């Protein structure tokens, strides 16, 4: 296929181009060069200014630590749960429960979490006044706590489903059932069999995804705005404040800060390499001594409880968003509103319509481009037999590991210079940078696992490659393609930073509007936006499931 030949370079351009240009666009202003603002001379002024900013060290340190703790806790939960329960009936039920949580946008999950844990939130209401004696919300700082504990907790419950699914994707390539049986026959406990015999291989496969979680958690903006500390905020939140500062000279400072963010994320990655070492020792020392850990029941129960709690928090949070959006009067200790009303929805709908339409077309177009590029790349990979190596995987993960804010800001600078900020094309492209990796990661496994003998048969029947692709491969992989598209759609709907920076306020989405409401603190309106934000990806996944079921309802070989 001739078209497939240009797909890999084009994909590379989409993945690396914005990254390279964006970093350059951050680097130059950081060193004083920004001709549109009169900066034509290189200097270190911005860095001096940055170093003199009060609380900057604390902001950066909080970001680094929050990233490390989030990643460690989420990974521990997932590992402990899999180690204790892999393949049990309960495990399969939890797996079905957790998978859809991936679709929940970060901002919506964070809002829902805030509604649960805030002093006036559901959890406090459930124990008041009978346990606490309170008839008004206690005056404590839970959301926005200075230690960032709430922010880390909110990130952990949202990263658990992602790491869990990445781990599930790594499992089929290992003979895990036989390995675990072997371990138990040798007298090792369930958890010990998993950790000693399987985990090192699994981790090697999911390492890049773990890096992506770490980089995300150190540089996240939307969750930090909603749940994170305020005096001072984490580094990425301060950056976005500087970027939005009407005083244009602050842009030099913001650029220097974006570089600091790059360094902070890199420092967190170095710290993680240290944690990997320690973790490796913690596994190899006891396994070297042949410790069996036969009595691991408490650990298994604890892991199950942690996993169930995190899923419950996300689901409960979404339910709270829905409830708040419909709530009339809802006084403090009451667990349910005294009245329900559609007023908020009818008031919000006219204002939400434009962002909603923008959300849909940006997500639709960026996903469509990502799916086509991915299919052509994978088709090209079949033709050449190249492109499956670790280096191409690294390139796909690159936009997910370099902190978004460090190159998106530079892209904004370039977009302004080129006069294309706030245009449809540039917004779609900005989303595509993040949609494409997820679509590719989601589709490449089923694509490569597809039985190649079907291709041989199709060719033997005289079908050209294009015809074989259209008539055989695409229909047989329809389910995987639609799932990948739903993943891409969900990623686009959840994007906050690219929308704010490249949309330039002219193009807004449900997510950027929702996060903008965080400062106002009107729970009912937040409920409307947050709930709508969650519904969109869920709809996409529902369609991705329903369409193949309907098309292939008389085809047993394609049923799940």
């Amino acid at each position: 296929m001739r078209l497939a030949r240009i797909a890999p370079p084009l994909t590379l351009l989409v993945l690396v181009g914005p990254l390279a240009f964006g970093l350059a666009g951050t680097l130059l202003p950081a060193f004083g060069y920004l001709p549109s603002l009169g900066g034509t001379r290189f200097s270190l002024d911005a860095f001096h200014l940055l170093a003199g900013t009060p609380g900057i060290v604390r902001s950066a340190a909080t970001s680094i630590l929050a990233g490390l703790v989030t990643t460690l806790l989420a990974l521990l939960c997932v590992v402990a749960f899999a180690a204790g329960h892999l393949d049990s009936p309960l495990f399969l039920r939890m797996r079905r429960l957790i998978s859809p949580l991936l679709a929940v946008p970060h901002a919506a999950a964070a809002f829902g979490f805030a509604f649960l844990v805030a002093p006036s939130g559901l959890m406090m209401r459930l124990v008041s006044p009978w346990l606490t004696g309170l008839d008004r919300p206690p005056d404590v700082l839970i959301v926005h706590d200075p230690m960032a504990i709430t922010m880390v907790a909110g990130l952990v419950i949202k990263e658990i489903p992602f790491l869990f699914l990445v781990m599930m994707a790594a499992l089929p390539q290992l003979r895990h059932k036989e390995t675990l049986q072997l371990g138990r026959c040798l007298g090792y406990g369930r958890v010990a069999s998993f950790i000693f015999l399987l985990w090192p291989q699994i981790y090697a496969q999911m390492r890049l995804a773990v890096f992506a979680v770490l980089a995300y958690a150190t540089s996240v903006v939307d969750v930090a705005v909603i749940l994170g500390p305020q005096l001072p905020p984490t580094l990425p939140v301060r950056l976005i404040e500087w970027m939005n500062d009407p005083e244009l000279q602050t842009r030099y400072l913001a650029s220097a800060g974006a570089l600091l963010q790059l360094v902070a994320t890199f420092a967190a990655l170095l710290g993680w390499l240290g944690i990997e070492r320690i973790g490796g020792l913690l596994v190899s020392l006891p396994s070297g001594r042949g410790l069996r850990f036969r009595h691991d029941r408490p650990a298994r129960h604890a892991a199950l409880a942690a996993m169930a709690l995190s899923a419950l928090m996300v689901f409960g949070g979404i339910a709270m968003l829905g409830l708040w959006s419909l709530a009339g009067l809802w006084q403090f200790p009451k667990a349910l509103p005294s009245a329900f009303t559609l007023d908020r929805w009818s008031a919000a709908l006219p204002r939400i319509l434009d962002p909603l339409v923008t959300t849909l077309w940006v997500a639709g177009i960026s996903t469509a481009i990502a799916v086509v590029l991915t299919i052509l790349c994978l088709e090209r990979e079949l033709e050449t037999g190249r492109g499956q190596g670790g280096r191409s995987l690294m390139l796909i993960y690159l936009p997910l590991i370099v902190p978004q804010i460090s190159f998106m800001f530079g892209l904004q600078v370039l977009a302004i210079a080129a006069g294309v900020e706030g245009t449809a094309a540039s917004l779609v492209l900005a989303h595509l940078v993040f949609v494409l990796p997820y679509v590719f990661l989601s589709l490449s496994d089923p694509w490569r696992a597809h039985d190649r003998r079907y291709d041989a048969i199709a060719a033997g029947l005289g079908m050209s490659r294009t015809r074989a692709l259209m008539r055989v491969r695409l229909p047989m992989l329809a389910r995987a393609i639609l799932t990948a598209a739903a993943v891409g759609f969900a990623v686009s709907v959840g994007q906050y930073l690219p929308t704010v920076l490249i949309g330039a306020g002219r193009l807004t989405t449900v997510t950027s509007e929702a996060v903008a409401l965080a400062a106002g603190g009107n729970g009912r309106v937040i409920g409307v936006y947050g709930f709508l934000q969650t519904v969109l990806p869920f709809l996409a996944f529902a369609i991705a499931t329903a369409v193949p079921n309907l098309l292939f309802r008389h085809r047993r070989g394609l049923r799940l």
Partner: protein
Amino acid sequence: MTKTEGLALDGITIRLGGRRLIALDAQVGRGEVLTVMGPSGSGKSTLLAYIGGFLDPAFEAEGSVRIDGSDLTGLAAEDRHAGILFQDPLLFPHLDVAGNIAIAIPQHSGSRRDRRRMAEAALADAGLEGFGDADPDTLSGGQKARVALQRVLMSRPRLLLLDEPFSKLDAHLREQTRQMLFATARQAGLPVVLVTHDEADAAAANGRVHRVGDS
């Protein structure tokens, strides 16, 4: 080259990382069967992939493949018209049974409805009348094998490549399918290359046997 009818394999060598897997010269006349015998992992299937034009780029291969005097070696897989059958019938699961056959009929062979009618007729020939609308996954193993054979025949192949096509069938069905396949190939005058590890297949094929990977 005196004989131009049938399949001519000249100086075929297939290597993987410097190790030679296949070295073969052979003539297969119309309706004749060349059997390639070897243990699993000997690389015997790569010969079929080379003849069919879908050899993985990881292999290095040379030698010419000619059919009735015309050279296939440089052609794309879809232009060679080399019908292939595997041990699994591999019916396309998203199409109905007649659709599986209709998709094999060469282009410009009539309207959609004509093609459908040709497919139904081919099914009837195979004793599967009325199965056109069925879901392929509901057929028995023997029925699936017959649909797969009709599918390959309807594409008007110039030769047949068989990759252990009997190994998954039970003893009774295996004998029956063998008879049917070889008789069909003889009737249609198709040269056949059969890859197998079963001596009984070679005996039933009643043609030249080439052994690979014996040590």
